């Protein structure tokens, strides 16, 4: 679905943000891109909808080279949910906000109405249809922003740091929502540094550091490798830390999930009594 071929990118200020990135993301995949602030994660995903074009190399989205089309054309297939919903919200009502992109893409009125209804319902904000988005709480505004992106049903959904400022329950609901999106065969790309969140989703994971990919694979392999994790300047999930601390007792070290941990420990403790 998305192919990144040896991409280099430098900002006009001269900062080299991407240094030779090559990766392929298949249709329907769930990918988490992780790394320190400044590693190049957001810079990379901005190439997927054409907001940025590579200085060297190329990015091909659904068979189309991003250099050859406009952002609006790519956006039709690639939805991007920005970190701060307040950078998007400007309409008088939530309904109009959700309809904004649909109008830009030239949907006809009937279709717009149906899709707005659907998106509002999906994110549980139907009751706010006539409310001003500025009157809503932080969490509600995030949901409206998400609804406004999902409204046009893009094939790829990119979420940039969706867990910032969210409490535990909000994160859990978000996690379930993302998993559901992926179950509907959408390609989901999440940029985050929240290890616990990724551990619970168990997607394909890619570590970035200094503009390069330093590791790539399944969450349980990557998040549990202390060397790779240190290179990406993140901290392994607590469960993993516990098991790494017990590795000399012969326990498996690729555990990231509480339930898996329970299974293993119970097996050991009950088995030996």
């Amino acid at each position, binding site marked *: 679905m998305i192919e990144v071929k040896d991409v280099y990118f430098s900002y006009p200020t001269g900062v080299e943000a991407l240094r030779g990135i090559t990766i392929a993301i298949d249709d329907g995949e769930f990918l988490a891109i992780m790394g320190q602030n*400044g590693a190049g994660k957001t810079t990379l995903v901005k190439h997927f909808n054409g907001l940025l074009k590579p200085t060297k190399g190329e990015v091909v989205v659904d068979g189309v080279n991003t250099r050859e089309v406009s952002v609006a054309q790519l956006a039709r297939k690639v939805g991007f949910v920005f970190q701060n919903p307040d950078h998007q919200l400007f309409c008088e009502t939530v309904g109009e906000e959700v309809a904004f992109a649909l109008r830009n893409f030239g949907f006809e009125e009937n279709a717009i109405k149906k899709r707005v209804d659907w998106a509002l319902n999906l994110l549980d904000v139907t009751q706010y249809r006539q409310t001003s988005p500025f009157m809503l709480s932080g969490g509600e505004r995030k949901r409206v922003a998400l609804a406004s992106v999902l409204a046009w049903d893009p094939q790829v959904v990119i979420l940039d740091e969706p867990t910032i400022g969210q409490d535990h329950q909000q994160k859990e609901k978000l996690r379930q929502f993302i998993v559901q999106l992926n179950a509907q065969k959408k390609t989901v790309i999440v940029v985050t540094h929240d290890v616990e969140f990724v551990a619970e989703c168990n997607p394909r994971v890619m570590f970035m550091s200094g503009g390069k990919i330093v590791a790539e694979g399944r969450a349980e392999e990557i998040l549990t490798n202390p060397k790779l994790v240190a290179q990406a300047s993140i901290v392994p999930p607590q469960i993993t830390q516990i098991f790494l601390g017990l590795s000399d007792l012969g326990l498996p070290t690729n555990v990231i999930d509480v339930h898996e941990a329970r299974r293993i420990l119970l097996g050991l403790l009950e088995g030996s009594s």
Partner: protein
Amino acid sequence: MAVIETRNLTYTYPGATKPSIKDVSITIERGEFVILTGPSGCGKTTLCRCFNGLVPHFYGGKLEGEVVVADRKVADHSIYELARHIGFVFQNPENQLFALSVEKDVAFGLENLAVPRDEMRKRVDWALQMAGIEELSERSPHELSGGQQQRVAIASVLAMQPDVMILDEPTSFLDPVGAQKIFEVINELNKKLGITIILVEHRLDLASKYANHVIVMDEGKVVLDGEPRRVFNSEEARLIGVGVPKATRLYQILKENGIRLHKVPVTSEEAASLLREVLKRD
């Protein structure tokens, strides 16, 4: 010696239909490291604003009950008087730094308090050192990373030598490594200088190892108030949906299955050593 005490504190923002905090009565002792947590909208930030006078002096509204900070009734003192005793570090690093250089920003509070220049210079240098940012003193805040900016904010508050420091989700915008650095700095201030810390946080897995007092709020009320292990292990915490550390969660899950670790762990190291005991036994 209590440095903060509230009695039946209830507050309603102007124009709001119901109070943001209801009947809050808590005591915070001098030198404690307090974690204040709870679901979004539970009133944590509002409560903190009651401590430094933003409520009621900046926000207006209706305040009932009493709150005393460093022996002063907050309602009777202006925010700038209280600022000598209680400092506030906000969530967004960018929006609390005003000056064009780091050291000028650290000096801002002292300038407001009309501290003489020599004394000011000493305090600024000291604060920069305690926050670990001496080499950044002449840089412009905008060039710094989020973590560095937050350390500047901490230094700016520290320079005023308060008894209490409130930090409202200071690591929201930071990556885990940046967040850990902030917690380490705050911990230093608490253990070395005796500054009482009130940390509002969701990221309990990283922060809880430093705390000796946890307060959980939900819908404006204080629901849990006490020692971290007891609070995290409680049924209420789980029902409210507080993100307790995974180590504690593991303890609970094992207990449900008949396996008892002899202490409630809060960090991965504790959990590992407790598990080690249990596994070795068999």
